[in-house]
């Protein structure tokens, strides 16, 4: 597992049914592109987050494929419609097979 990986998300705690909310996500990750060389001139192997998904109550909201050109600490901001109370689940997939997950509850006012 890459070191210092920490997912952060910002989701409103409450929303009106059918409201469009803004979700912000960021994961701290060095996103090694696989193009760089170390001091000895040896290629540093690629190590990036290659996929990010968000699900709401089991239904997929967004599914992103990430390529090596994406810079360090990838940040995604997107909108989602909230039809009912439930849970947002966010998942990041690392090149090395690690999976980082976090979830946020949202209630309807």
């Amino acid at each position, binding site marked *: 597992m890459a070191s*210092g990986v*920490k997912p*952060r998300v*910002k989701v409103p705690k409450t929303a009106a049914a059918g409201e469009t909310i803004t979700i*912000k996500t*960021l994961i*701290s990750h060095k996103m090694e592109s696989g193009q760089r060389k170390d001091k000895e001139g040896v290629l540093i192997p690629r190590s990036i987050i290659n996929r990010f998904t968000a699900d709401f109550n089991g239904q997929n909201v967004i599914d992103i494929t990430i390529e090596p050109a994406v810079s*360090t*600490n990838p940040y995604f901001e997107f909108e989602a419609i909230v039809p009912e109370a439930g849970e947002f689940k966010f998942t990041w997939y690392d090149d090395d097979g690690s999976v980082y997950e976090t979830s946020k509850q949202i209630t309807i006012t």
Partner: protein
Amino acid sequence: MNIKALLAGITCFGVAGLAAHAGQDAKLSIDGEVLTTQAAAPAHTENLDEIYSGWLFRSGETQALQLDDFDNPGFVFVDQAIDEYSKVDGSAGKSCASCHENVEDFAGLRPTLPRVEGAELVSMEDLINNCRTERMGAEPWKWSGGKMTGMTALIGVQSRGLPMSVAIDGAAAPFWEKGKELYYKRVGQLDMSCSNCHEDNYNKMIRADHLSQGQINGFPTYRLKNAKLNSIHARFKGCMKNIRAQPFKEGGDEFKSLELYIASRAEGLAVETPSVRN
């Protein structure tokens, strides 16, 4: 506030324009808490009437990054420091949290540093490294290294919103005098002092840079130019290089005295740690 409004202020009213414009439409409000970015200059800062946070001199986009802790990239490093805080290191088998259970207890520390302990002036970096070597039996961190700036940001953010207030009398007086001397002393190939830019010419453009008063109430600060947290002393070093001077050593007596003097010039401004600048 946007940069246009600020620039309009400069052309219309000169330096007074900052007060007229920035004060009216730029409010540094984080999660509903409004931070003081402008105050009457303390009595010992004879050559200024008002003091302004560096935040007021930045463009609207840069300012916006500091309004929300999620958007503030400095918090990536604060989060990493939270993990570091409870990580055991060194021969004593202790972490920061072994002695200082709640990091929240450090509220109020940032605005009072640097301070005199014994016969020495100590900065937050000294306190952290002292804990590491004396209590934890661990290696000291580099003054401006990633772990150090993350930790100073974590401890500093506990005091966010509190007014800067360092002691400059008593035992601190000689250090303060030395810092003041350095502030006004011309050095380097360009023969400039801190005051030439940050006192005589703040709020003017120095080519593409908008000069601030050089206040340090937001440090360690996340800079867009290098995408990391920057310590106060690293910033001093950058300034000295800009004027083609041989920089003092980070963590040395000169920079600590200068840190004390400049911190005293910010008396009344809110701690903004970790701030965002360009």
